[in-house]
């Protein structure tokens, strides 16, 4: 099997309605997988599912532990298995600690950390039974280095990186690989979210010029390519790894 062959495999992608989740879903579908989308955005998920010829999406909030358990059970009941779990659902709060109230903190931690944990915990028994499985988590450059003005987000992504390493070691003997991508600045709806005004093309170029060695934002598909690789048998010797896909951002 090569990275381009996911025939007969079932891939659950959270945050699959847009951005890097949707881009990953498209690549997995093109590689022959049955791709189950999970997102709280029902219309967006339905549109992506229709585009890739996938089954009915699972609609709900990943910060809800019960929903995550039900979503995994429904996936196995309908499709028999979960070969790959991609935790792409994420959110951001653009503020320092003084601008982060309890609800802001809980929302960011709930989606980015709790939800990822609930889904991994629900999917692992099925992967253990199958004797194999791959989990790909979405970390961030800001999970490894700090950044001003997004305290909760930085903390949450640091937790994602450690969750990835801990799970990888817990389940390495059961044939399960757990890795993370740590994207840099990617042109997605989240990049534009929580800003005073939608950033213009000039704004985004200025951001890239100021912060990114390649001086451009990533296309979501450039991250999805690495996600699919990490989930594939081509990455059979990789687990517990945080793969930065950041155009040199953290190389400095």
């Amino acid at each position, binding site marked *: *099997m090569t990275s381009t062959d996911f025939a*007969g495999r079932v891939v659950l992608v959270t945050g699959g309605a847009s951005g890097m989740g949707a881009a990953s879903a498209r690549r997995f579908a093109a590689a022959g997988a049955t791709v189950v989308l999970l997102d709280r955005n029902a219309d967006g998920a339905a549109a992506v599912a229709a585009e890739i010829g996938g089954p009915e999406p699972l609609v709900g909030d990943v910060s809800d532990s019960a929903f995550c358990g039900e979503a995994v*059970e*429904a996936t*196995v*009941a*309908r*499709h*028999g*298995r979960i070969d790959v779990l991609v935790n792409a659902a994420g959110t951001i709060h653009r503020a320092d600690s003084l601008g982060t109230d309890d609800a802001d903190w809980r929302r960011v931690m709930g989606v980015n950390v709790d939800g990822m944990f609930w889904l991994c915990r629900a999917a692992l028994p099925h992967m253990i*039974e*199958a*004797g*194999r499985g791959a989990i790909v988590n979405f970390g961030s450059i800001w999970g490894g280095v700090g950044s001003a003005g997004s305290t909760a987000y930085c903390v949450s992504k640091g937790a994602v990186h450690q969750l990835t390493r801990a799970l990888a070691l817990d389940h390495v003997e059961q044939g399960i690989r757990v890795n993370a991508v740590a994207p840099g600045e990617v042109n997605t709806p989240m990049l534009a979210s929580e800003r005073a005004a939608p950033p213009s093309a000039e704004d985004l170029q200025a951001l890239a010029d100021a912060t990114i060695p390649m001086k451009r934002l990533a296309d979501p598909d450039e991250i999805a390519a690495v996600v699919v690789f990490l989930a594939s048998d081509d990455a059979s010797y990789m687990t517990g790894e945080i793969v930065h896909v950041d155009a040199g951002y953290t190389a400095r």
Partner: protein
Amino acid sequence: MSERLPDASLSSEARRFLAGRVVDDPVDFHRIDAIRREAHDGFRPAVDRAVERHALEWDEVELGGVRCTRLRSARTAQPRGTMLYCFGGGFFLGDPLSEFPVIGALAEWAELEIVAPWYRLAPEHPAPAAGNDCFAAWTALAESTDAALYLGGESAGGNLALRTAQLARDAGGQSPSALALLSPAVDLRPDRGLFGVTLEADPTLAHHTMESAHSVYVAGRDPADPSISPLFAGMEGLPPTFVTTGTRDLLLSMCLRLDRRMRRAGVEVETRVWDGLWHVFEFYDDYPESSESLAEIAAFLRSH
């Protein structure tokens, strides 16, 4: 083992059967024609008894390009429906005629016409040839009749029957009213320690024999692919299912995992684990437990 365990719940006939043991050797596929002939001849006396016991009449039909044996009991004036039944034999052995002790009982007691496909065997025809044949026969059967339809199979045939039900569901065509699976071999992954507590307990089937048979059927494909191990396909939306196994069945573990997966997917499944009995004990007509189990399966089919 029979000396150490009392097996008090077994009939004296079943206890005598236990005295015989199988040798745990891989199948010698160089002798495949002789092995098939010897098996067929060995089952012949039981087949003849079944013909008499259940007043069987049969002919041959072709469904979806697949030769099938069509069977009914002369005691059933008007069958309630038709059951497609997939014979067992590790995907390399067996034929519909050798199944008469099982399908003859179901024909009479469930009042069904039975159609049994002569699906292609490994190693000459590895996966998915057998599954394709069974699904082709099912599709043609469903198009040919408005009668109630059922699906069943034992061991390797249980795998094929379950897969056929999954494919029928996915295709949106006619699904069976119920599914009967006798010791179904639904998980063909090798070397996973999946035989659990019944390893070396089954008087009819041994580990290396079974894995050598599965390996020529899988033939290098992914054994966890749902077309090969239907345990790993979705169970949601499958019809009511009756599973039989025994505490000596080499495949007890996978039968119980199938039961759990079906329950979790909301399928109405009943699984009978027979104390002290072995892999497809219903196949051997020499003890009363087999008749009792077949009567239960028939009652389940009649009620759906």
